[in-house]
């Protein structure tokens, strides 16, 4: 295989890290909502934790994006 083509395929594969980020963000917000609907009075207190979880999950996917960029331009 042409090494240049392999590079592009590899970069595309590295972006599949975003699958995990999507699942993670969805599960965080879904679980927060279902918890908040069960006990609305406790929901505002957990909003910070929600944001932390969101950012942590999103960052994991972006690590994959960084790997893709390193493959492409590194």
């Amino acid at each position: 295989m042409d090494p240049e083509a392999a590079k592009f395929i590899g970069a595309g594969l590295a972006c599949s890290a975003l699958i995990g980020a999507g699942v993670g963000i969805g599960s965080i917000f879904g679980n927060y909502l279902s918890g908040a609907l069960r006990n609305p009075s406790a929901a505002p207190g957990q909003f910070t934790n929600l944001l932390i979880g969101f950012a942590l999950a999103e960052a994991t996917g972006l690590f994959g994006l960084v790997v893709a960029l390193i493959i492409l331009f590194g």
Partner: protein
Amino acid sequence: MHQFEINRFLKLDLFGLDASFTNSSAFMVAAVVIVLGFLTLAMSNRSLVPTRAQSVAEMSYEFIANMLRDNVGKAGMRYMPFVFSLFVFVLACNMLGMLPYSFTVTSHIVVTFALAALVFVVVTAIGFARHGLGYFRLLVPSGMPIIMLPMIVTIELISYLIRPISLSVRLFANMMAGHMLLKVFAGFIVSLGFFTGGFVPFLATVAFTGLEVFVAFIQAFIFSVLTSIYLSDAVNMHEH
């Protein structure tokens, strides 16, 4: 991409090191000046019933103070100036980057890594200063069978040492990916033509810009939350 390029405004060579004044440094100075100017102005004529500017300044302080108190406890309030400056600086840099034609300081890993390395060094120094060599017990979870120790300690050590990398890459990747996303979608508008379908990516760009403002705030907050969680490890060790 043009928006991530660094231009030298003022060439400066310090003992073989390139210490030029670049657009990156200009925006860092701008961030510090804006924050200092705003906080000083807002608090200059304090009153019991705060004005609008004063209540914004107080809210931002309270926000970080509460977060620090929740995560570290009373002992952590000594480090409030450090965490608050980190938060405000990162927030100002992120938000300045959202202005059109501006430069995002935090979209360069060298800047975020310097910040994260500072956090790492400060936290480790605090840990050793408070607990002496006992700080190494952080790597040993309590109630661990002896046979598991070598493996667990190795894993804990790696996860401790990887902190500055994950902290810096998280901020840098979020800021860079966000700006690239905006650029890519803005490119779709031009290539489609606005009236022949280009309004769809236009609407998406508007929505993503809102998301990016949110992310700019969240990432600054996450940076300070993680700093305070690391501080909590160093101050309280396991017993918190």
